[in-house]
């Protein structure tokens, strides 16, 4: 009886002086890998125009029908996007979205991207529906190039080492430019 007990306790006590595995979350926010699939953003061109042209591909790719778009013709004098149309309404329902990334993969304009923002809690069901204003980035924000739909070219050489991916590098640069995320709360 004593033998197994001592053996068990040796195993547990071994861990007292080991490095702690716990992440002190609210103070210390772990940097997610570059492929992280969390909250979407709608991007802009360098000149500040919206990238989305209301082609509806993301909405039809979405398995859960989480995206709702109403497109409208651009005013020729004062266009909002580079295409003929722009999205007047672009709603994302977080109550449906399963963060699969199919919409990002579908977008032919690089308008959609996913970020590493996962702190999404809201107090009412109404707040679950995010509108275009909430998702659209500020003009001048550096573009995020998404990995979805890009990472398919074969790596050079037969060995398992994969080549450094431009997209990866760009994302790293973006992280550097963005600077450390300020701790919230």
């Amino acid at each position: 009886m004593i033998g197994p007990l001592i053996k068990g306790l040796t195993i547990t006590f071994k861990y007292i002086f080991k490095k702690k595995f716990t992440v002190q979350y609210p103070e210390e926010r772990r940097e997610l890998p570059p492929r992280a699939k969390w909250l979407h953003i709608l991007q802009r061109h360098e000149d500040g125009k919206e990238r989305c042209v209301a082609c509806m591909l993301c909405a039809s790719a979405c398995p859960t029908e989480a995206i709702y778009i109403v497109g409208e013709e651009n005013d020729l004098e004062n266009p909002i996007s580079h295409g003929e149309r722009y999205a007047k309404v672009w709603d994302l329902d977080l109550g449906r979205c399963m963060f699969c990334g199919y919409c990002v993969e579908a977008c032919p304009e690089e308008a959609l991207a996913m970020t590493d923002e996962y702190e999404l809690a809201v107090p009412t069901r109404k707040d679950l529906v995010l509108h275009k204003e909430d998702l659209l980035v500020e003009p001048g924000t550096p573009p995020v190039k998404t990995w979805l739909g890009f990472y398919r070219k074969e790596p050079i050489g037969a060995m398992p080492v994969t080549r450094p991916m431009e997209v990866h590098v760009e994302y790293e640069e973006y992280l550097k430019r963005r600077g450390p995320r300020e701790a919230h709360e």
Partner: protein
Amino acid sequence: MKREFEKDTGVKTDIIELNMGPQHPSTHGVMRIILELDGEVIVKATPVIGYLHRGTEKIAENRAYYQVVPYTDRLDYLSPMSNELGYVMAVEKLLGVEVPLRAQYIRVILAELARIASHLVWLGSNANDIGAVTVFLYAFREREKIYDLLEAISGQRMNNAFLKIGGLAGDLPEGWIDGVRKFIKEFPEKLKDPDGLLTKNRIWRERTEGIGIIPRDLAIDLSLTGPPLRASGVERDLRKDTPYLVYDELEFDIPVETAGDVYARYLVRMEEMRQSVRIIEQAIEKLPGGPVLIDDYKIVPPPKDKVYRDIPELIHHFKLISEGFHPPEGEVYFAVEAPKGELGYYIVSDGSNKPYRLRIRPPSFVNLQALEYILPGHLIADAVAIIGSLDPVFGEVDR
């Protein structure tokens, strides 16, 4: 039936009915078992399922083929990659395409990682039910490391939506293989902790040995698959019997035990984890270069940079995303060896872009039938050990 207590003491007692679940920490989800008890002894057990029926099969009939993949993730949510694997391979069989070799090897690595992750949850929760809480902490610590690997490759910790019909959503990120190497190097060492706490532990053995015996014949009659079958002395593993992917080029053993009790199932699963490590080791060594997706733009979306440049690719992209592809008419059944057993997908295609019918053969559902046969005669305290040892996952049982 002559009741024990009455026989011993002469006092008349009634059989009481006890509802276990659906909200019970050790039913591993939402199952209800109606237990009929004579004192402490179970005389009849009736499992009631369906508390997590979400209509996956019906939803799949209204989705394009490629949109079903994220739904299959959520069947056996302890090992999403194995579920995706079964589905995409079934559709690939229907389409008659073969994915590039590199993608096959990566799929093997992902499926085996999923197997380890799934068995770790089983190990933790089964031990926790019997009273060894520490093991749960160790198991989840290792699982977090697998999560990190899966997150680095797919962007999500669980429910990855990473496999694509025709290959993978992306190649490996830089340094990923080194991460896997590090993990499989450390893992057998770390597995010794729960091993040391349980395998020779007298309490653990007394709680598990001779408990919940499934005889070989019963296991075959009930068409059990996976570890419960192998613990009853039947050597059946789809990875060896009907090799898919590149399993026939990899060396591994199938652990078999003959006792058929909870302890045997424990031993089988522990050994399976070690074998998975072996498989991953070899797969990494043999991993070839090359593409990870096929080149047929009718089935997989063309690469994005081509979509921006070329009109034909753009048209393919629009057509594929908005409509999906149209496989030939016919029906296929394809099964993979998931961590829980034989996970099969039966697809009927009528030539349209959606499955006419998708039927899933979930291993836990079939394995769960055994409960009715093996619970009677045991003490009520053993019920949790037996349920845990069958390792049901209700996303899969109820679909």
